[in-house]
């Protein structure tokens, strides 16, 4: 059974009197435990699509089911609860909370969003920080670590709630190639270990070679059928 089913998804932004069609009748399905990328140049609709899948935005028309939930029907509160329970996010600019330490950033979703008991919280945070190789840096603040380290922390934060789906918008855009591959490796490792579906957007062809499946987008349209790729580790 598909984790995500999108049918004729259309998103139109209105800017003053101008209407911009960011997504044009896009349809696709994504299976659980996939490692997928939407690729395309700037303005192709990657981020818009991720925002829709992540319940951060609503389509203008079409239907989108994520984990059997029609996300178009969710209210603000329901959408927040859905995100907190089912989704993890990784951002291009890492978006760590600057006043929290590495440990506290990873702990945040368990503490504030899911109200997980202290003991369990601690073991999950420590375990993930070990997995992403950031346990030694756990007491540092985001401004005391490198970009690659920040993104590893962001990966840990996205996974700490045991989500079914992690959405990463251009997760490697602000990283050098070596670090970018390292982060992708960690994400793939997490996917293997936890069976989580990873969907990320990128315009970097080198990163595309790392994914199992990618969906090319151009001007808001899926321009070809889903292409299966093995990646370095296939």
């Amino acid at each position, binding site marked *: 059974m598909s984790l995500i089913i999108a049918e004729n998804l259309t998103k139109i932004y209105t800017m003053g009197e101008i209407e911009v069609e960011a997504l044009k009748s896009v349809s696709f399905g994504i299976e659980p435990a996939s490692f997928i990328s939407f690729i395309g140049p700037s303005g192709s609709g990657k981020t818009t699509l991720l925002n829709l899948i992540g319940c951060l935005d609503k389509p203008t028309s079409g239907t989108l089911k994520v984990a059997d939930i029609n996300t178009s029907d969710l209210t603000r509160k329901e959408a927040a609860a*859905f995100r907190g329970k089912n989704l993890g996010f990784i951002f291009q600019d890492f978006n760590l909370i600057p006043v929290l330490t590495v440990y506290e950033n990873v702990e945040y979703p368990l503490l504030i*969003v899911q109200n997980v008991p202290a003991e369990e919280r601690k073991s999950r945070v420590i375990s993930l920080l070990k997995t992403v190789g950031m346990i030694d840096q756990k007491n540092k603040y985001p401004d005391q670590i490198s970009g690659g380290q920040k993104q590893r922390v962001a990966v840990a934060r996205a996974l700490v709630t045991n989500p079914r789906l992690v959405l990463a918008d251009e997760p490697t855009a602000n990283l050098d190639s070596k670090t970018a591959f390292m982060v992708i490796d960690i994400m793939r490792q997490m996917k293997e270990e936890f069976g989580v579906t990873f969907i990320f957007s990128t315009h970097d062809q080198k990163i595309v070679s790392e994914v199992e499946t990618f969906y090319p987008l151009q001007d808001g349209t899926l321009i070809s059928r889903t292409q299966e790729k093995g990646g370095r580790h296939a």
Partner: protein
Amino acid sequence: MLKLFKIAVRNLSRYKRRTLLTSSLIAIGVMFVLVFIAASGSFKYIMISQITDSMLGHLQVHKRGYVASIDSLPLTLNLSEKAEKKLEKTMEDIPEIEAFSPRVKFGGMFSNFIETTNIRVNGVYPEKEIATVPLFLSRIKQGEKHIKEGEILIPELLANGLKVKVGDTVVVIATNRDGSVNGKQFVINGIIESVTGPGGRDGYMHIKDATEILRMDEMEISEVAVRLKDFGKLNAVSNRLDEILSKELNKQGKPIFDVRTWEKLSPFYNIARMIDVMTFFIKLMLIAMVLVSIMNVMIMAVFERIREIGTISAIGTMPKKILSLFLIEGFSLGVLGAVVGNILAIGIVFLLNLVKITFNFGRQSGLVLSPSLNTGDILWISAIVIIVSVAAALQPAFKASRMEPVEALRHV
């Protein structure tokens, strides 16, 4: 909630200078308001004490209609002996009343055998008067601090004007209620300091001398001054006394007695009310100051952290928690300002008490200002500041909680 507090406090410490400036502004406001309340409260307390404890009593009972004509001290509106006995009995049954002093008041002529002028006199039972207005003796500036039969205490203005002194013999002449004139010789046994307010420039003599001059066949009383054990129960006791006495009716079926608190007898009450009005407006200024400064800081905080709000919203933080986070920041700023302001105010009030500031009021000089802060004022002002701080943070917090995560994440 504790974790939200921790995050809120860390967010405040992110902009140390701004947090420090805002909380300093609130602290200074709180300090000024508390010091003003302490100083004006002390001024009010001293004035009220001077008026009630040296002359007026906490409340007074007259025959109905007497107060309206009080300037002419009408002997025809005195309470009869029977009515006065009833009044005494009633007051003895009220445990909150500490003491009372019946007075015979009249206007007369005062002569030193060379010059003559007018005088207003209170005939009193010395022990009862001292028990009711304990500062009375402290007003006697020259001579002996007592009132004996055949002796008179005269106000200092009169003594200066007629150039009489303690030990001199003088004559007091008065017209009684039937219109006949009588006089009596007295020895001046003391010069009494004037105080501001009604009766503040009256002379004093023993009540027996007053009844003798006025040729009263039976004791008639112009007023009864009353002292309470607890001044804070003034209105309660006054109302109770009024309720009991209102049942005593004259032949026309109207109440005999008229109970009035000091507030309705002294013009200083209007000054006291003005002080209260000023205090109220100063509190309003504090509220405005806190409101503007906290709102400004919180609007800035929300504006600067739009992407961060988008991030925490995206990872599933419920809108009410985002609202709480910003409200707690406003609350914490308010608490910080209030606590520091309270500490500063307590320090300044302590210093003012060490310095001992003196002031004059009317003819009274050298009154020492003794400001004091009570817990109620501290808690009340702190509560106002904290509530206003939270209220000021409400709009920015609400804005943050209603922010669309997708737009917030897009913000540069």
